[in-house]
Protein backbone atom coordinates (compact mmCIF):
# COMPACT_ATOMS: atom_id res chain seq x y z
CA UNK A 1 0.00 0.00 0.00
CA UNK A 2 2.71 2.43 1.09
CA UNK A 3 4.86 1.78 -1.95
CA UNK A 4 1.79 2.43 -4.06
CA UNK A 5 0.90 5.85 -2.70
CA UNK A 6 4.35 7.40 -2.55
CA UNK A 7 4.97 7.71 -6.30
CA UNK A 8 1.47 9.10 -6.77
CA UNK A 9 2.00 11.98 -4.32
CA UNK A 10 5.45 12.57 -5.81
CA UNK A 11 3.89 12.98 -9.22
CA UNK A 12 1.15 15.21 -7.82
CA UNK A 13 3.58 17.60 -6.13
CA UNK A 14 5.60 17.69 -9.35
CA UNK A 15 2.61 18.82 -11.37
CA UNK A 16 1.64 21.29 -8.63
CA UNK A 17 5.10 22.83 -8.92
CA UNK A 18 4.75 23.06 -12.67
CA UNK A 19 1.31 24.69 -12.27
CA UNK A 20 2.83 27.32 -9.96
CA UNK A 21 5.58 28.08 -12.46
CA UNK A 22 3.00 28.40 -15.23
CA UNK A 23 0.93 30.79 -13.09
CA UNK A 24 3.97 32.94 -12.30
CA UNK A 25 4.93 33.11 -15.97
CA UNK A 26 1.38 34.02 -17.04
CA UNK A 27 1.22 36.76 -14.41
CA UNK A 28 4.57 38.14 -15.55
CA UNK A 29 3.43 38.28 -19.18
CA UNK A 30 0.13 39.98 -18.26
CA UNK A 31 1.97 42.61 -16.21
CA UNK A 32 4.47 43.19 -19.00
CA UNK A 33 1.71 43.64 -21.61
CA UNK A 34 -0.15 46.03 -19.32
CA UNK A 35 2.97 48.09 -18.64
CA UNK A 36 3.70 48.28 -22.34
CA UNK A 37 0.14 49.49 -23.05
CA UNK A 38 0.35 52.22 -20.42
CA UNK A 39 3.56 53.44 -22.08
CA UNK A 40 1.59 53.73 -25.31
CA UNK A 41 -0.76 56.54 -24.27
CA UNK A 42 0.06 60.03 -23.15
CA UNK A 43 -1.87 61.07 -20.09
CA UNK A 44 -2.49 64.79 -20.38
CA UNK A 45 -4.38 65.35 -17.20
CA UNK A 46 -7.91 66.69 -16.77
CA UNK A 47 -8.84 69.84 -18.67
CA UNK A 48 -9.55 72.92 -16.66
CA UNK A 49 -13.09 73.12 -17.99
CA UNK A 50 -13.92 69.54 -16.93
CA UNK A 51 -16.01 70.61 -13.98
CA UNK A 52 -18.25 73.06 -15.85
CA UNK A 53 -18.69 70.71 -18.83
CA UNK A 54 -19.64 67.80 -16.57
CA UNK A 55 -22.12 70.01 -14.77
CA UNK A 56 -23.76 71.14 -18.01
CA UNK A 57 -23.97 67.55 -19.28
CA UNK A 58 -25.71 66.58 -16.06
CA UNK A 59 -27.95 69.63 -16.40
CA UNK A 60 -28.86 68.45 -19.88
CA UNK A 61 -29.90 65.03 -18.64
CA UNK A 62 -31.95 66.52 -15.84
CA UNK A 63 -33.67 68.95 -18.18
CA UNK A 64 -34.15 67.07 -21.46
CA UNK A 65 -35.40 69.05 -24.42
CA UNK A 66 -38.96 67.69 -24.55
CA UNK A 67 -39.84 69.95 -27.49
CA UNK A 68 -37.57 67.79 -29.67
CA UNK A 69 -39.72 64.67 -29.17
CA UNK A 70 -42.14 65.65 -31.91
CA UNK A 71 -41.68 68.38 -34.51
CA UNK A 72 -44.34 68.45 -37.25
CA UNK A 73 -41.82 69.45 -39.91
CA UNK A 74 -39.70 66.35 -39.27
CA UNK A 75 -36.16 65.61 -38.06
CA UNK A 76 -37.39 64.97 -34.51
CA UNK A 77 -36.70 62.30 -31.90
CA UNK A 78 -39.59 60.00 -32.84
CA UNK A 79 -38.69 59.97 -36.51
CA UNK A 80 -35.04 59.38 -35.69
CA UNK A 81 -35.88 56.43 -33.47
CA UNK A 82 -38.30 55.05 -36.05
CA UNK A 83 -35.55 55.33 -38.63
CA UNK A 84 -33.19 53.42 -36.35
CA UNK A 85 -35.80 50.72 -35.72
CA UNK A 86 -36.46 50.33 -39.44
CA UNK A 87 -32.74 50.11 -40.23
CA UNK A 88 -32.19 47.36 -37.69
CA UNK A 89 -35.29 45.39 -38.72
CA UNK A 90 -34.35 45.51 -42.40
CA UNK A 91 -30.70 44.78 -41.69
CA UNK A 92 -31.57 41.78 -39.53
CA UNK A 93 -34.03 40.37 -42.07
CA UNK A 94 -31.51 40.76 -44.89
CA UNK A 95 -28.88 38.97 -42.79
CA UNK A 96 -31.22 36.23 -41.56
CA UNK A 97 -32.01 35.26 -45.14
CA UNK A 98 -28.63 35.87 -46.80
CA UNK A 99 -26.74 33.85 -44.18
CA UNK A 100 -28.74 30.63 -44.77
CA UNK A 101 -26.74 29.44 -47.80
CA UNK A 102 -23.52 30.46 -46.02
CA UNK A 103 -24.57 28.43 -42.98
CA UNK A 104 -25.16 25.27 -45.01
CA UNK A 105 -21.90 25.88 -46.84
CA UNK A 106 -20.00 26.12 -43.54
CA UNK A 107 -21.60 23.11 -41.82
CA UNK A 108 -19.35 20.07 -41.62
CA UNK A 109 -22.29 17.65 -41.75
CA UNK A 110 -23.76 19.07 -44.96
CA UNK A 111 -20.86 18.25 -47.29
CA UNK A 112 -18.60 15.25 -47.54
CA UNK A 113 -15.37 17.20 -48.02
CA UNK A 114 -13.90 19.14 -45.15
CA UNK A 115 -12.48 21.65 -47.65
CA UNK A 116 -16.02 22.78 -48.51
CA UNK A 117 -17.16 23.52 -44.98
CA UNK A 118 -13.71 24.87 -44.09
CA UNK A 119 -13.81 27.48 -46.86
CA UNK A 120 -17.35 28.41 -45.75
CA UNK A 121 -16.15 28.98 -42.21
CA UNK A 122 -13.30 31.16 -43.49
CA UNK A 123 -15.70 33.19 -45.64
CA UNK A 124 -17.89 33.85 -42.59
CA UNK A 125 -14.86 34.89 -40.52
CA UNK A 126 -13.78 37.33 -43.22
CA UNK A 127 -17.27 38.89 -43.25
CA UNK A 128 -17.10 39.21 -39.45
CA UNK A 129 -13.72 40.96 -39.41
CA UNK A 130 -14.89 44.59 -39.75
CA UNK A 131 -17.21 46.24 -37.22
CA UNK A 132 -20.45 47.54 -38.72
CA UNK A 133 -19.30 51.14 -38.36
CA UNK A 134 -16.41 50.48 -40.80
CA UNK A 135 -18.74 48.60 -43.15
CA UNK A 136 -21.14 51.56 -42.93
CA UNK A 137 -18.41 54.04 -43.92
CA UNK A 138 -17.53 51.84 -46.89
CA UNK A 139 -21.19 51.66 -47.96
CA UNK A 140 -21.65 55.41 -47.59
CA UNK A 141 -18.91 55.77 -50.18
CA UNK A 142 -20.70 53.24 -52.39
CA UNK A 143 -24.39 54.19 -52.09
CA UNK A 144 -24.23 57.61 -50.50
CA UNK A 145 -25.13 58.67 -46.94
CA UNK A 146 -28.49 57.67 -45.46
CA UNK A 147 -30.48 54.79 -44.07
CA UNK A 148 -29.85 52.48 -47.03
CA UNK A 149 -26.11 52.42 -46.27
CA UNK A 150 -27.01 51.61 -42.66
CA UNK A 151 -29.23 48.71 -43.67
CA UNK A 152 -26.52 47.26 -45.90
CA UNK A 153 -23.85 47.69 -43.23
CA UNK A 154 -25.90 45.94 -40.56
CA UNK A 155 -27.07 43.26 -42.97
CA UNK A 156 -23.60 42.35 -44.21
CA UNK A 157 -22.00 42.43 -40.81
CA UNK A 158 -24.75 40.32 -39.22
CA UNK A 159 -24.33 37.64 -41.89
CA UNK A 160 -20.95 36.80 -40.41
CA UNK A 161 -22.25 36.16 -36.93
CA UNK A 162 -25.64 34.67 -37.85
CA UNK A 163 -24.05 32.40 -40.45
CA UNK A 164 -21.71 31.03 -37.80
CA UNK A 165 -24.50 30.49 -35.26
CA UNK A 166 -26.79 28.95 -37.89
CA UNK A 167 -24.09 26.56 -39.07
CA UNK A 168 -23.43 25.46 -35.49
CA UNK A 169 -27.16 24.77 -35.16
CA UNK A 170 -27.08 22.68 -38.33
CA UNK A 171 -24.06 20.77 -37.06
CA UNK A 172 -25.86 19.91 -33.83
CA UNK A 173 -29.03 18.43 -35.31
CA UNK A 174 -30.13 14.87 -34.68
CA UNK A 175 -29.12 12.80 -37.74
CA UNK A 176 -31.83 10.22 -37.11
CA UNK A 177 -34.69 11.96 -38.98
CA UNK A 178 -32.46 12.45 -42.03
CA UNK A 179 -31.74 8.74 -42.10
CA UNK A 180 -35.44 7.94 -41.73
CA UNK A 181 -36.31 10.21 -44.65
CA UNK A 182 -33.59 8.75 -46.85
CA UNK A 183 -34.85 5.27 -46.01
CA UNK A 184 -38.37 6.22 -47.10
CA UNK A 185 -37.13 7.25 -50.54
CA UNK A 186 -36.82 11.02 -50.14
CA UNK A 187 -34.38 12.98 -52.30
CA UNK A 188 -31.87 15.49 -50.96
CA UNK A 189 -34.20 18.48 -51.04
CA UNK A 190 -36.99 16.52 -49.40
CA UNK A 191 -34.64 15.38 -46.65
CA UNK A 192 -33.65 19.02 -46.14
CA UNK A 193 -37.27 20.14 -46.00
CA UNK A 194 -38.64 17.41 -43.72
CA UNK A 195 -35.70 16.36 -41.54
CA UNK A 196 -33.31 19.32 -41.36
CA UNK A 197 -35.39 22.50 -41.57
CA UNK A 198 -37.96 21.58 -38.88
CA UNK A 199 -35.07 21.01 -36.51
CA UNK A 200 -33.21 24.26 -37.22
CA UNK A 201 -35.85 26.92 -38.06
CA UNK A 202 -36.89 27.71 -34.45
CA UNK A 203 -33.24 28.14 -33.47
CA UNK A 204 -32.63 30.29 -36.56
CA UNK A 205 -35.49 32.59 -35.57
CA UNK A 206 -34.28 32.82 -32.02
CA UNK A 207 -30.75 33.76 -33.10
CA UNK A 208 -32.12 36.34 -35.56
CA UNK A 209 -34.12 38.01 -32.80
CA UNK A 210 -31.04 38.05 -30.62
CA UNK A 211 -29.09 39.61 -33.45
CA UNK A 212 -31.90 42.16 -33.84
CA UNK A 213 -31.34 43.19 -30.23
CA UNK A 214 -27.67 43.76 -31.00
CA UNK A 215 -28.47 45.57 -34.26
CA UNK A 216 -30.77 48.08 -32.63
CA UNK A 217 -27.83 49.16 -30.45
CA UNK A 218 -25.49 49.28 -33.45
CA UNK A 219 -28.05 51.21 -35.49
CA UNK A 220 -28.02 54.06 -32.94
CA UNK A 221 -24.31 54.59 -33.63
CA UNK A 222 -24.58 54.29 -37.42
CA UNK A 223 -25.89 57.85 -37.65
CA UNK A 224 -22.62 59.15 -36.19
CA UNK A 225 -20.92 58.37 -39.50
CA UNK A 226 -23.93 59.43 -41.58
CA UNK A 227 -25.66 56.11 -42.16
CA UNK A 228 -29.08 57.22 -40.96
CA UNK A 229 -31.04 56.88 -37.74
CA UNK A 230 -31.00 58.63 -34.39
CA UNK A 231 -27.19 58.90 -34.41
CA UNK A 232 -27.32 61.81 -36.84
CA UNK A 233 -29.22 64.32 -34.60
CA UNK A 234 -27.14 63.00 -31.69
CA UNK A 235 -23.83 63.93 -33.27
CA UNK A 236 -25.18 67.33 -34.34
CA UNK A 237 -26.40 68.03 -30.81
CA UNK A 238 -23.04 66.94 -29.38
CA UNK A 239 -21.12 69.20 -31.74
CA UNK A 240 -23.08 72.29 -30.75
CA UNK A 241 -23.05 71.19 -27.07
CA UNK A 242 -26.82 71.22 -26.90
CA UNK A 243 -26.86 69.03 -23.79
CA UNK A 244 -30.61 69.21 -23.28
CA UNK A 245 -31.08 67.74 -26.72
CA UNK A 246 -28.39 65.09 -26.13
CA UNK A 247 -30.26 64.20 -22.94
CA UNK A 248 -33.61 63.63 -24.65
CA UNK A 249 -31.99 61.63 -27.46
CA UNK A 250 -30.19 59.34 -25.02
CA UNK A 251 -33.43 58.89 -23.07
CA UNK A 252 -35.17 57.99 -26.32
CA UNK A 253 -32.49 55.42 -27.16
CA UNK A 254 -32.82 53.86 -23.71
CA UNK A 255 -36.60 53.59 -24.13
CA UNK A 256 -36.27 52.06 -27.61
CA UNK A 257 -33.66 49.50 -26.56
CA UNK A 258 -35.55 48.44 -23.45
CA UNK A 259 -38.78 48.10 -25.38
CA UNK A 260 -37.34 46.06 -28.24
CA UNK A 261 -35.45 43.85 -25.77
CA UNK A 262 -38.69 43.12 -23.94
CA UNK A 263 -40.59 42.27 -27.11
CA UNK A 264 -37.78 40.22 -28.63
CA UNK A 265 -37.11 38.35 -25.39
CA UNK A 266 -40.79 37.49 -25.08
CA UNK A 267 -40.86 36.24 -28.67
CA UNK A 268 -37.71 34.15 -28.19
CA UNK A 269 -39.17 32.48 -25.14
CA UNK A 270 -42.26 31.54 -27.12
CA UNK A 271 -40.28 30.04 -29.99
CA UNK A 272 -38.22 27.47 -28.11
Amino acid at each position, binding site marked *: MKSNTTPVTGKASGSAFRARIRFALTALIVIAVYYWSIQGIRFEGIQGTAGTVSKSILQGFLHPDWSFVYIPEGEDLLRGLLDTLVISILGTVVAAVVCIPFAFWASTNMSRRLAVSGSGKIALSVIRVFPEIIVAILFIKAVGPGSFAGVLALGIHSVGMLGKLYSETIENIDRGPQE*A*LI*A*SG*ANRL*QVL*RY*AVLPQVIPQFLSYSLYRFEINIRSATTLGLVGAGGIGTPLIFALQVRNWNRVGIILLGIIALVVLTDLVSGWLRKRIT
Partner: protein
Amino acid sequence: MIEFDNVTKVYANGTVGLRNINLTIREGELVVIVGLSGAGKSTFLRSINRLTDITSGDIRVNGQSVTRASGSQLRRIRRDIGMIFQSFNLVKRSTVIRNVLSGRVGYHSTLRTLLGWFPKQDVELSLDALQRVNIREKAYVRSDQLSGGQQQRVSIARALAQEARVILADEPVASLDPLTTRQVMEDLKRINRDMNITTVINLHFIDLAREYATRIIGLRAGEVVFDGTPEEATDEAFAEIYGRPVQQDELLGGA
Protein backbone atom coordinates in the same frame (compact mmCIF):
# COMPACT_ATOMS: atom_id res chain seq x y z
CA MET B 1 -39.32 -11.06 -51.30
CA ILE B 2 -35.73 -10.25 -50.37
CA GLU B 3 -32.86 -12.18 -51.96
CA PHE B 4 -29.23 -12.14 -50.85
CA ASP B 5 -26.75 -13.42 -53.45
CA ASN B 6 -23.18 -13.95 -52.22
CA VAL B 7 -23.35 -10.74 -50.25
CA THR B 8 -20.16 -9.60 -48.58
CA LYS B 9 -19.49 -6.34 -46.80
CA VAL B 10 -16.03 -5.29 -45.67
CA TYR B 11 -15.73 -1.91 -43.98
CA ALA B 12 -12.95 0.52 -44.88
CA ASN B 13 -11.09 -0.38 -41.68
CA GLY B 14 -11.07 -4.06 -42.65
CA THR B 15 -13.91 -5.19 -40.37
CA VAL B 16 -16.06 -7.82 -42.03
CA GLY B 17 -19.73 -6.89 -41.69
CA LEU B 18 -21.22 -9.68 -43.80
CA ARG B 19 -19.51 -12.75 -45.17
CA ASN B 20 -20.93 -14.46 -48.25
CA ILE B 21 -24.61 -14.37 -47.33
CA ASN B 22 -27.02 -16.38 -49.48
CA LEU B 23 -30.65 -16.47 -48.46
CA THR B 24 -34.16 -15.64 -49.51
CA ILE B 25 -36.82 -14.05 -47.33
CA ARG B 26 -40.26 -14.83 -48.76
CA GLU B 27 -43.21 -12.47 -48.82
CA GLY B 28 -45.11 -12.29 -45.54
CA GLU B 29 -42.39 -13.81 -43.40
CA LEU B 30 -41.54 -12.27 -40.03
CA VAL B 31 -37.83 -12.86 -39.77
CA VAL B 32 -35.93 -12.06 -36.61
CA ILE B 33 -32.17 -11.62 -36.88
CA VAL B 34 -30.26 -12.53 -33.74
CA GLY B 35 -26.61 -12.39 -32.84
CA LEU B 36 -24.19 -10.63 -30.54
CA SER B 37 -23.62 -6.94 -31.05
CA GLY B 38 -21.07 -6.57 -33.81
CA ALA B 39 -22.21 -9.79 -35.48
CA GLY B 40 -23.50 -7.85 -38.49
CA LYS B 41 -27.23 -7.57 -37.68
CA SER B 42 -27.43 -3.85 -38.43
CA THR B 43 -25.27 -4.19 -41.53
CA PHE B 44 -27.56 -6.97 -42.76
CA LEU B 45 -30.67 -4.85 -42.28
CA ARG B 46 -29.23 -1.59 -43.59
CA SER B 47 -27.85 -3.25 -46.71
CA ILE B 48 -31.40 -4.21 -47.73
CA ASN B 49 -32.38 -0.57 -48.37
CA ARG B 50 -28.77 0.38 -49.06
CA LEU B 51 -28.27 2.72 -46.17
CA THR B 52 -25.05 0.71 -46.16
CA ASP B 53 -23.37 -0.22 -49.45
CA ILE B 54 -22.23 -3.81 -49.83
CA THR B 55 -18.80 -4.73 -51.15
CA SER B 56 -19.79 -7.58 -53.44
CA GLY B 57 -22.79 -9.70 -54.34
CA ASP B 58 -26.34 -8.64 -55.09
CA ILE B 59 -29.45 -7.89 -53.05
CA ARG B 60 -32.87 -7.92 -54.72
CA VAL B 61 -36.11 -6.67 -53.21
CA ASN B 62 -39.22 -7.87 -55.02
CA GLY B 63 -37.04 -8.86 -57.96
CA GLN B 64 -35.32 -5.47 -58.35
CA SER B 65 -31.62 -5.17 -57.65
CA VAL B 66 -30.95 -2.70 -54.86
CA THR B 67 -27.24 -3.00 -55.47
CA ARG B 68 -27.42 -1.85 -59.08
CA ALA B 69 -30.18 0.72 -58.68
CA SER B 70 -29.20 4.37 -58.88
CA GLY B 71 -30.74 7.76 -58.12
CA SER B 72 -34.48 7.81 -58.65
CA GLN B 73 -34.58 4.04 -59.17
CA LEU B 74 -33.11 3.47 -55.72
CA ARG B 75 -35.51 5.98 -54.19
CA ARG B 76 -38.43 4.14 -55.82
CA ILE B 77 -37.25 0.87 -54.25
CA ARG B 78 -36.73 2.53 -50.87
CA ARG B 79 -40.26 3.91 -51.00
CA ASP B 80 -41.55 0.36 -50.74
CA ILE B 81 -39.36 -0.43 -47.73
CA GLY B 82 -40.33 1.08 -44.39
CA MET B 83 -37.70 1.35 -41.69
CA ILE B 84 -38.04 1.50 -37.92
CA PHE B 85 -35.11 2.55 -35.76
CA GLN B 86 -34.04 2.01 -32.18
CA SER B 87 -34.12 5.74 -31.51
CA PHE B 88 -37.42 6.29 -33.43
CA ASN B 89 -35.84 9.01 -35.60
CA LEU B 90 -38.80 11.36 -35.50
CA VAL B 91 -38.51 15.10 -35.81
CA LYS B 92 -39.29 15.69 -32.16
CA ARG B 93 -40.63 19.20 -32.45
CA SER B 94 -42.95 18.43 -35.35
CA THR B 95 -46.45 17.10 -34.81
CA VAL B 96 -47.18 13.40 -35.04
CA ILE B 97 -49.11 13.78 -38.30
CA ARG B 98 -46.21 15.76 -39.86
CA ASN B 99 -43.87 12.92 -39.05
CA VAL B 100 -46.22 10.31 -40.47
CA LEU B 101 -46.84 12.38 -43.61
CA SER B 102 -43.10 12.67 -44.20
CA GLY B 103 -43.24 8.99 -45.14
CA ARG B 104 -45.28 10.04 -48.20
CA VAL B 105 -42.73 12.37 -49.80
CA GLY B 106 -41.41 9.66 -52.12
CA TYR B 107 -44.78 9.62 -53.90
CA HIS B 108 -44.86 13.26 -54.93
CA SER B 109 -42.85 15.74 -56.94
CA THR B 110 -40.11 17.64 -55.17
CA LEU B 111 -41.85 20.98 -55.70
CA ARG B 112 -45.12 19.76 -54.25
CA THR B 113 -43.46 18.30 -51.16
CA LEU B 114 -41.27 21.37 -50.63
CA LEU B 115 -44.46 23.43 -50.45
CA GLY B 116 -45.97 20.87 -48.11
CA TRP B 117 -49.07 20.28 -50.21
CA PHE B 118 -50.08 16.77 -49.33
CA PRO B 119 -53.28 15.52 -50.96
CA LYS B 120 -56.24 14.86 -48.73
CA GLN B 121 -55.92 11.11 -49.27
CA ASP B 122 -52.41 11.25 -47.78
CA VAL B 123 -53.71 12.84 -44.61
CA GLU B 124 -56.43 10.19 -44.37
CA LEU B 125 -53.91 7.45 -45.06
CA SER B 126 -51.73 8.82 -42.26
CA LEU B 127 -54.62 9.01 -39.83
CA ASP B 128 -55.58 5.42 -40.71
CA ALA B 129 -52.00 4.34 -40.11
CA LEU B 130 -52.11 6.02 -36.69
CA GLN B 131 -55.42 4.28 -36.03
CA ARG B 132 -53.78 0.94 -36.72
CA VAL B 133 -51.26 1.51 -33.95
CA ASN B 134 -53.93 3.00 -31.66
CA ILE B 135 -52.66 6.56 -31.32
CA ARG B 136 -54.89 8.40 -33.75
CA GLU B 137 -55.95 10.81 -31.00
CA LYS B 138 -52.33 11.99 -30.74
CA ALA B 139 -52.17 13.08 -34.40
CA TYR B 140 -51.86 16.81 -33.72
CA VAL B 141 -49.66 16.58 -30.63
CA ARG B 142 -45.97 17.45 -30.80
CA SER B 143 -43.94 14.25 -31.02
CA ASP B 144 -41.72 15.03 -28.04
CA GLN B 145 -44.84 15.02 -25.84
CA LEU B 146 -45.23 11.28 -26.43
CA SER B 147 -43.75 8.41 -24.44
CA GLY B 148 -41.07 6.21 -26.00
CA GLY B 149 -43.52 3.46 -26.87
CA GLN B 150 -45.89 5.95 -28.48
CA GLN B 151 -43.06 7.51 -30.48
CA GLN B 152 -42.08 4.10 -31.79
CA ARG B 153 -45.68 3.53 -32.85
CA VAL B 154 -45.58 6.83 -34.72
CA SER B 155 -42.56 5.57 -36.62
CA ILE B 156 -44.44 2.33 -37.41
CA ALA B 157 -47.33 4.48 -38.66
CA ARG B 158 -44.85 6.37 -40.84
CA ALA B 159 -43.81 3.08 -42.45
CA LEU B 160 -47.47 2.15 -42.94
CA ALA B 161 -48.34 5.52 -44.49
CA GLN B 162 -45.47 4.88 -46.85
CA GLU B 163 -47.46 1.84 -48.02
CA ALA B 164 -44.32 -0.20 -47.63
CA ARG B 165 -44.32 -3.83 -48.74
CA VAL B 166 -41.34 -4.59 -46.55
CA ILE B 167 -40.63 -3.33 -43.03
CA LEU B 168 -37.14 -3.36 -41.57
CA ALA B 169 -36.84 -2.80 -37.83
CA ASP B 170 -33.40 -2.23 -36.33
CA GLU B 171 -33.60 -3.02 -32.60
CA PRO B 172 -37.06 -1.42 -32.40
CA VAL B 173 -37.57 -2.16 -28.70
CA ALA B 174 -34.05 -1.72 -27.34
CA SER B 175 -34.89 1.61 -25.71
CA LEU B 176 -38.34 0.62 -24.39
CA ASP B 177 -39.49 -0.89 -21.11
CA PRO B 178 -40.74 -4.53 -21.07
CA LEU B 179 -44.44 -3.65 -21.21
CA THR B 180 -44.23 -1.26 -24.17
CA THR B 181 -41.78 -3.67 -25.79
CA ARG B 182 -44.55 -6.26 -26.02
CA GLN B 183 -47.07 -3.72 -27.31
CA VAL B 184 -44.73 -2.62 -30.08
CA MET B 185 -43.89 -6.23 -30.98
CA GLU B 186 -47.63 -7.04 -31.05
CA ASP B 187 -48.18 -4.10 -33.42
CA LEU B 188 -45.43 -5.31 -35.74
CA LYS B 189 -46.73 -8.89 -35.64
CA ARG B 190 -50.32 -7.81 -36.32
CA ILE B 191 -49.30 -5.59 -39.24
CA ASN B 192 -47.18 -8.42 -40.63
CA ARG B 193 -50.11 -10.84 -40.47
CA ASP B 194 -53.01 -8.57 -41.41
CA MET B 195 -51.32 -6.74 -44.25
CA ASN B 196 -48.94 -9.49 -45.34
CA ILE B 197 -45.96 -7.13 -45.03
CA THR B 198 -42.60 -8.87 -45.10
CA THR B 199 -40.91 -7.92 -41.84
CA VAL B 200 -37.28 -8.23 -40.79
CA ILE B 201 -36.45 -7.35 -37.18
CA ASN B 202 -33.13 -7.21 -35.32
CA LEU B 203 -33.55 -8.27 -31.71
CA HIS B 204 -31.27 -9.18 -28.89
CA PHE B 205 -33.94 -10.71 -26.64
CA ILE B 206 -34.05 -14.37 -27.60
CA ASP B 207 -37.38 -15.14 -25.93
CA LEU B 208 -38.99 -12.34 -27.94
CA ALA B 209 -37.44 -13.76 -31.08
CA ARG B 210 -38.96 -17.20 -30.35
CA GLU B 211 -42.32 -15.69 -29.50
CA TYR B 212 -42.87 -13.47 -32.52
CA ALA B 213 -40.75 -14.79 -35.37
CA THR B 214 -41.84 -17.16 -38.09
CA ARG B 215 -38.18 -17.64 -38.88
CA ILE B 216 -35.00 -16.93 -36.98
CA ILE B 217 -31.65 -16.18 -38.60
CA GLY B 218 -28.56 -16.23 -36.42
CA LEU B 219 -25.47 -14.23 -37.38
CA ARG B 220 -21.98 -14.60 -35.98
CA ALA B 221 -19.05 -12.57 -37.29
CA GLY B 222 -21.01 -11.72 -40.43
CA GLU B 223 -21.94 -15.30 -41.26
CA VAL B 224 -25.28 -17.05 -41.11
CA VAL B 225 -24.82 -19.72 -38.44
CA PHE B 226 -28.50 -20.50 -37.88
CA ASP B 227 -31.56 -20.37 -40.10
CA GLY B 228 -34.68 -22.10 -38.89
CA THR B 229 -38.07 -22.00 -37.21
CA PRO B 230 -38.53 -20.73 -33.65
CA GLU B 231 -39.06 -24.36 -32.55
CA GLU B 232 -35.63 -25.29 -33.85
CA ALA B 233 -34.06 -22.32 -32.06
CA THR B 234 -33.39 -24.10 -28.77
CA ASP B 235 -31.13 -22.78 -26.04
CA GLU B 236 -28.41 -25.00 -27.49
CA ALA B 237 -28.89 -23.44 -30.89
CA PHE B 238 -28.57 -19.96 -29.36
CA ALA B 239 -25.46 -21.01 -27.48
CA GLU B 240 -24.07 -21.97 -30.86
CA ILE B 241 -24.99 -18.58 -32.38
CA TYR B 242 -23.50 -16.63 -29.50
CA GLY B 243 -20.52 -18.92 -29.05
CA ARG B 244 -21.40 -19.14 -25.36
CA PRO B 245 -24.37 -20.10 -23.15
CA VAL B 246 -27.42 -17.82 -23.12
CA GLN B 247 -27.30 -15.16 -20.41
CA GLN B 248 -30.09 -13.85 -18.25
CA ASP B 249 -30.02 -10.32 -19.71
CA GLU B 250 -30.73 -11.72 -23.13
CA LEU B 251 -34.19 -12.69 -21.93
CA LEU B 252 -36.92 -10.10 -21.61
CA GLY B 253 -38.92 -12.41 -19.32
CA GLY B 254 -42.53 -12.09 -18.14
CA ALA B 255 -44.05 -13.78 -21.19
